[in-house]
């Protein structure tokens, strides 16, 4: 019998999700699918527009990580111009990207995930949100909001706006940094670092409580995909692609981002608008890999900043066998390490003697007919790939989105939870919360991934072997 259970309030997932679980005749879960049901068509409607419009256009994919799109798009445009941007411009772009990491990771940890972690997955859904956290631990909530504000304010100081700044332009940035602005950002960083370190210490002490979740959330082996510096260290803006397998062996290393098509294929399924990137040499769907904070920390040899390196060393101890940290639950941990790193690195870059150099823009016109820009967004590696005609108008666009890279892994994670929580013909209570939580580990930005538009309800359907819906859970 079909049954609908409505659960309020709206979940803390960005985008519009539907999940179906396919049952075999025996009543066991045969397949788990994560559907994105909207289509926005960015890759199509950008065609015909001037390439210089692309950074502002593609940034509209998302209001949470517009800076990431802005940077990847401008890097693709730099490639079209065939210029090397001035070193100060690169540093300024890096600072903005790191500020984006701080604000987005703080949003994910404090606003979206801390309600689960602090209040428990089975607590009252009406209170399992940032307001519930404010009630339970007002000091932590205040600090979380402040940390995000520091990241957002740094973006605003640099780019004039918290959301959708246009300061980054093809060839560099539009305006040099003034001493006043530099000092204003520098002044906030010690407070941010203090909050980040305190939160890290608090979370570290809480980790043993989540033993069950750690052992059930996305633990199946996957490869890890991220950018690293030429020396193999943590990298967020530029760098080269590294892929490690679940045992920590390097599968690909120092691959120039311009070669991404050699190693990344994009599969399409008819049940979702989100594409399925995979590691090409292993084929689809065996070439499953993960991106984002967990992958970046697993792939990096070191962070390169003092406190973050200490935190990274502790992160590595999470895996008993000394290999890469595999549980998706530890994305939360990795995010906190990255917040510390981002603030430390921002401080270092802002203290660079050249940071006020007025030469921040290279000027050129379209000199190539194809441009690729790859950078690390908070959720993982983001790729923008454009082709233009002789007049500089876009003829073809491909956006490989951070959340998309994790698509196969998220489907696999749902399957794991389903195996544990579906019994025969009905959905056990707690199923929805656990599914949400495993997805939330990846901090998916479904708007980006499907370039989609819509609200955030989630529907889970349980279908029997003949496709008949035997149970259904939904949140409106």
């Amino acid at each position, binding site marked *: 019998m079909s049954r609908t259970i409505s659960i309020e309030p709206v979940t803390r997932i960005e985008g519009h999700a539907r999940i179906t679980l396919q049952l075999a005749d025996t009543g066991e879960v045969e397949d788990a699918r994560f559907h994105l049901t909207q289509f926005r068509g960015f890759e199509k409607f950008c065609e015909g527009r001037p390439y210089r419009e692309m*950074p*502002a256009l593609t940034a*509209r994919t998302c209001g949470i990580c517009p800076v990431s799109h802005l940077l990847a798009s401008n890097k693709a445009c730099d490639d079209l111009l065939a210029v090397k941007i001035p070193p100060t411009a690169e540093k300024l772009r890096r600072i903005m990207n790191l500020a984006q990491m701080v604000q987005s990771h703080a949003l994910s940890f404090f606003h979206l995930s801390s309600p689960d972690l602090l209040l428990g997955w089975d607590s009252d859904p009406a209170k399992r949100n940032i307001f519930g956290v404010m009630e339970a631990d007002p000091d932590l909530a205040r600090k979380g909001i402040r940390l995000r504000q520091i990241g957002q304010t740094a973006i605003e100081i640099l780019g004039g706006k918290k959301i959708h700044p246009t300061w980054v332009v093809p060839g560099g940035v*539009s305006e040099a940094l003034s001493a006043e602005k530099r000092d204003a950002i520098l002044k906030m960083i010690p407070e941010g670092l203090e909050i980040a370190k305190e939160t890290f210490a608090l979370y570290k002490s809480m980790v043993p409580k989540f033993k069950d979740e750690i052992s059930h959330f996305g633990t199946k082996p996957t490869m890890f995909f991220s950018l690293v510096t030429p020396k193999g260290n943590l990298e967020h803006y530029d760098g080269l692609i590294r892929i490690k397998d679940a045992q920590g062996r390097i599968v690909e290393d120092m691959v120039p981002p311009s070669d991404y098509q050699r190693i990344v294929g994009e599969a399409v399924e008819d049940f979702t608008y989100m594409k399925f990137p995979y590691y090409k040499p292993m084929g689809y769907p065996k070439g499953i890999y993960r991106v984002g904070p967990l992958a970046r920390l697993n792939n990096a040899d070191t962070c390169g900043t003092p406190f973050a390196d200490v935190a990274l060393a502790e992160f590595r101890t999470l895996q008993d066998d000394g290999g890469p940290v595999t549980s998706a639950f530890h994305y939360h941990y990795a995010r906190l390490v990255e917040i510390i790193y981002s603030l430390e690195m921002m401080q270092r870059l802002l203290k660079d003697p050249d940071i006020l150099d007025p030469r921040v823009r290279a000027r050129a016109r379209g000199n190539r007919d194809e441009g690729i820009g790859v950078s690390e967004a908070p959720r993982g590696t983001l790729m923008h790939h454009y082709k233009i005609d002789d007049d500089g*108008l876009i003829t073809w666009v491909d956006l490989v989105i951070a959340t998309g890279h994790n698509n196969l892994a998220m489907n696999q994670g749902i399957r794991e939870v389903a195996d544990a929580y579906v019994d025969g013909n009905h959905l056990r209570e707690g199923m929805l919360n656990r599914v949400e939580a495993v997805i939330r580990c990846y901090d998916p930005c479904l708007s980006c991934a499907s370039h989609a538009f819509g609200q955030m309800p989630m529907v889970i359907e349980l279908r029997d072997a003949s496709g008949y819906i035997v149970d259904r859970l939904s949140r409106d």
Partner: protein
Amino acid sequence: MPLPAPSASVRVVTFKIDGQDLSAREDESILEVCREHKIPIPSLCWMEGLSVIGACRLCVVEVAGVPRLLAACTTRVAEGMEVSTDTEKLRRYRRTLVEMLFAERNHVCSVCVSNGHCELQWLAQTCGVDHVRMPYRNAGYALDSSHEMFRVDHNRCVLCTRCVRVCDEIEGAHTWDVMGRGSDCKVITDLAQPWGDSTTCTSCGKCVQVCPTGALTKQGTSAGEMVKDQHFLPILARRRHIR
């Protein structure tokens, strides 16, 4: 062509604008007098230094005793005239006109090179356009990026024809003109050839500077970077006239 030069024998008339007693030469338009006295009236197709066409109707005013609305740019002041520039009816008309401009083509401000420096945006703010009440047409218009220095995006054109007039009256090239009617109406270069192939264009860029929106822009500009400089126009127009 620009309004004829005042002759020596021209009279001075007295009249009222919004209850304020004013005097001006009888060959001046209501809009010119308002600009002189800092009385705000929105306008779009009018531009100091170019001929007056009264096309956009944004500067409409009420004149006592005249049953219809008159364009302030094409109406000369007269003895005893009583003009109202800011009534409820005028505000309603102006807002609707600006909304129709937005609904007709694809003015996506957030990604436009003229964002923050656009006369259409300022008009929308001035006229209280917080949203557009009529359905957008969403018709796709072409973009011509063939010129080495400039670009025309018909999606953002409001057909004010400033480019046509400045090219003809000030530069003397007459590269720009208008073709088609209704929603097919558009500005063209030469005989509707790509701008980059134009044999008459001198690449002076005056059309780009006078364009009120992001329709005519310089190549190499990104979102919000196209700031127009229109100070040259009255100076050039005056010198051309003196000659």
